[in-house]
C-alpha cells in the first residue's frame, strides 16, 4: 500500500500555490491587468468625489448666481459656470453621485429580476422556460431606447423612473445570460455528481449553479453599469431623466446645447465626465472578464 500513503508534493509547488480560492486567483489576475487597474482607479476616483462632494462643496450644487452666468473656466470656477451662474465643477461632482447611483441600482434591479427569471427558466425548463424566453424575445425585439422613452412617458419623467426604465430594458439581457449560464452549468459534470450524492434541487441551485454563474453576472453587471450610465444620460439628454435642479450629466449636456457656441465648456465637461466614468467601468469589466472567465484563461 505504498501509494496510499500521503503523497510527497513538489516542494516548490506547495509554496507558490498556497490556499487560494478561485476568487482570490481572479483577483490576482485582475491586479496584473493594467487597463483594469486603471479602470478601477477611474471608477474609484468618481466614487470618491461623489462621496466627498458635500465636503468639497458644502453649499450644494444649486447655488444660483444669475449675474455670473456662462463664465468661462477660471480660478474661481474651475470648469466655468452654467446659465444659472452655478459652478460646473460642483455640478459635475454632484452629478457623479447621480450617475453612479442610477448606474448601480438600475443594474442591481435588472440583475435581481433577470436572475430570478433566468434561473427559473433555465432550471425548470419546459413551458415556464418557453414563456419566459418568449417574453425576453419580445423585450429584446424592442428598440431599447424607445422602450425606455415609452416607459418614462408612462411613469412620468423623473430620475427614479429613468432608473426603473433602464432596469426594465436590461432585464432580458441578464435573464438570458443567467438562463444560458444555468443551462450550461446544469450540464457540468459536477452538477451530475451533486445529484449523484443525493443532493436536492434547491441546494444544487444555490450551492452549485448560482456561485458558478456569478462570474459572468459580475462581468456583465460591470459592463452594464457603463451602459446604464450612458442610457440614463441619454434619457436626461432627451429631458426624460433627472428633475431640475439635479445636476445629472445628460441633462447638463442637453442644457448646454444652446450655449454650444458661446459657452462650449458647459458641453465639454459633463460629456467628459460621462465618458470617463463609462470608460472606467468598461475597463474594469474587461479586466474582470479576463480574470473571471475561465474560457479566456489559457
Amino acid at each position, binding site marked *: 500500500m505504498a501509494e496510499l500513503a500521503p503523497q510527497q508534493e513538489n516542494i516548490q509547488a506547495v509554496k507558490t500555490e498556497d490556499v487560494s480560492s478561485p476568487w482570490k486567483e481572479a483577483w490576482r489576475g485582475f491586479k496584473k491587468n493594467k487597463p483594469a487597474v486603471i479602470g478601477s482607479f477611474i471608477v474609484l476616483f468618481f466614487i470618491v468625489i461623489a462621496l466627498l462632494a458635500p465636503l468639497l462643496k458644502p453649499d450644494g450644487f444649486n447655488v*444660483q448666481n*444669475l449675474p455670473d452666468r456662462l463664465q468661462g473656466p477660471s480660478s474661481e470656477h474651475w470648469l466655468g459656470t452654467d*446659465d444659472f451662474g452655478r459652478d460646473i465643477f460642483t455640478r459635475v461632482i454632484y452629478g457623479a453621485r447621480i450617475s453612479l447611483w442610477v448606474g448601480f441600482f438600475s443594474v442591481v434591479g435588472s440583475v435581481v429580476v433577470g436572475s430570478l427569471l433566468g434561473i427559473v427558466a433555465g432550471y425548470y425548463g419546459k413551458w415556464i422556460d418557453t414563456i419566459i424566453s418568449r417574453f425576453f424575445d419580445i423585450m429584446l425585439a424592442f428598440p431599447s431606447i424607445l422602450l425606455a422613452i415609452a416607459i418614462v412617458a408612462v411613469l412620468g419623467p423623473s430620475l427614479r423612473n429613468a432608473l426603473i426604465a433602464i432596469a426594465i430594458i436590461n432585464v432580458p439581457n441578464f435573464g438570458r445570460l443567467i438562463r444560458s449560464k444555468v443551462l450550461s452549468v446544469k450540464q457540468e459534470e459536477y452538477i451530475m455528481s451533486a445529484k449523484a450524492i443525493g443532493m436536492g434541487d434547491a441546494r444544487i441551485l444555490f450551492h452549485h449553479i448560482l456561485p458558478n454563474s456569478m462570474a459572468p453576472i459580475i462581468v456583465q453587471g460591470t459592463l452594464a453599469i457603463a451602459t446604464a450610465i450612458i442610457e440614463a444620460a441619454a434619457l436626461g439628454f432627451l429631458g426624460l431623466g433627472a428633475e431640475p*435642479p439635479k445636476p445629472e450629466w445628460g441633462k447638463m449636456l442637453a442644457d448646454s*446645447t444652446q450655449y454650444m*457656441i*458661446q459657452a462650449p465648456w458647459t458641453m465639454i465637461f459633463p460629456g467628459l465626465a460621462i465618458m470617463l466614468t463609462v470608460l472606467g467601468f468598461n475597463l474594469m469589466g474587461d479586466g474582470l472578464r479576463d480574470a473571471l472567465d475561465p474560457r479566456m484563461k489559457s
Partner: protein
Amino acid sequence: GCSSKSSNGNSSKGGESAQDTLIFGRGGDSVGLDPAAVTDGESFKVTKNIFETLVEFGRQDTEIHEGLATKWDVSPDGLTYTFDLREGVKFQDGTDFNADAVVYNFNRWMNGDADKFPYYASMFGGYKGDEGHVIADVKALDKYKVQFTLKRPQAPFLKNLAMSPFAIASPAAIDKYGDKFTENPVGTGPFKFVSWSRNDKVVIEKNKDYWKKGYPKLNKVIFKSIPENSARLNALKNGEIDLADGINPSDADGIKADSNLQLFERPSMNVGYLGFTVTRKPFDNVKVRQALNMAIDRQAIIDAFFGGKGVPAKNPMPPVIGGYDDDIQPYEFNLDKAKQLLAEAGYPDGFEMELWAMPVPRPYMPDGKKIAEAIQSNFAKIGVKAKIVSYEWATYLEKASKGEADAYLLGWTGDNGDADNFLYALLDKDSIGSNNYSYYSNDKLHDILIKAQSEVDEGKRNELYKQAQEIIHEDAPWAPLAHSTPLLAGSAKLKGFYPHPTGSDWLDEASFE
C-alpha cells in the same frame, strides 16, 4: 450647398445675382395646410401666405385693416356686418374670388363640427344649430357684397374674422380635393403651394397673378423643420437657412454681434405665468398666493432666460391689448414682505409644494424648466420648498387641467388681440375645465367679463376690463411672470420681413438685397 462658406445664402446651383428663395427654419412641421382645420401656429405660419382673410391685422399689430374686403359697415346694434369685396381677385387655381366663395366658406365651417373646424366654435360660439352660435346667417348680396347677421353683438367679431383660420379658400379646390384639401391648399394669397414633405419642409412659390402688383418679391419660400433650437441657429450661421424662429434669448447677443445676421423681435402678445391651483391647499389662501408673487425676482429671470427681451408681467394680458390696466402696482420682489404674508397665512416656516415645469419651449416661455429652477431657488429663500415636476407636454396639459398641480408654469398667446381672449378664456369660471387651469372662480369677475363680451363701445369695454384686472390682481390666482418677446434671426440681407405678434408672418414684402 449649405456648406458653410456660402453664408451669403446663395444657392450653389445657378448663378442668380440676387437671391429670391427664402428658407425659413422653424421648430416643427405644420399639421395641415387647411387653416380652418388646424389650430397650431406652425400651420398658420404657412397658410398665412397662401390664404387671405376678409379683414387683416396690421403689419405688426392687431388693428383691423382691409383685406379681401375693402370696406365694411356695422349696424348700430352691432348685429349686421356688410362687406364690400375686392374685385378682380383670383384664387390660385384660376377661379374667381367673390361673395359666393365667402358664403361657401362660412357655410362649410358652420356646418362642420369641432373635429373638422375646431377654431370656428371657439371664436363664434359653436356651429349652426348650437345655442351659443353667434352667426345667424351669411349671405351674398351681390357678386362682391356679403352680409353677416349675428344673433347677438360680438365685440371682437372683426378681430375674429382677421384670424388665419377664417381665411377664404377656393371652393372649386375644396370640392376637388375633399379630404385632401389640407395637403393641397388653394387660396388667394401671395404664394401658392408647391410641395410638402412631412416633418421636413413645405415649399411655396410666387403667385404670379397676385392682386397686389409687384408682390410678392420672393420667388420661393421653403419652410424647413429643424426641431432643435441650437441646430436651427447653427444652420442659420452656416447659411443653410435664411430665417430662423425660436431663437434662444441667450443667443441674442451673439447674433447681434454677427455682421452676417440680424435679430428680429416679434411684438409680444402673450403672457407667461405661474398658475396656482386655488382649490389646493395652501394655494386656496390668497395671502400665500400674494406672498409667492412677491418672492419671484421677475427681472432676474427675464434677464437670464428671456434674454432680457421681455417685460415683467403684472397683468394676465400683455400691454399691447386694448383694455390693459397700466395703473396696477405690481407685486414687488420683496422677500421680507413675502415671508410676513406667509406667516400671516399661517406658514411662518414655509411649506413644501410641487412646482410644475413645462417640458417644451413656447413663445411665451422659452425654457420652462430653467425658469422653474430659478423660481425654485427664489421660493427657497422664503422657506417654500418646491419640487420641480415635469411631464411630457401632453400629459402635462392633461394633468394640469385636472387641477393636479400645486403650481404650474404656463402661458398664452393671443389669438386675435382681444382682451376677452385672455381674461375670459383663462380666468373666468366658465373656462374652468378648459383653459382655466387654476380653477379660479369669482362671480363678480364673471359678471364683468360677460358684460364686456357684448359691449360694442370700445371705451366702456376697456373700462370693464380694467376693473377685471384689478380683481384678478387682488386675488392673485397667478403670478404673471413676463410678456416675452419671441426672437427670430435672419440673414443680414433679408429685408421687408416684419414679425407679427400672432406668430404668423407675411412674407410678401420680404426680399434679399
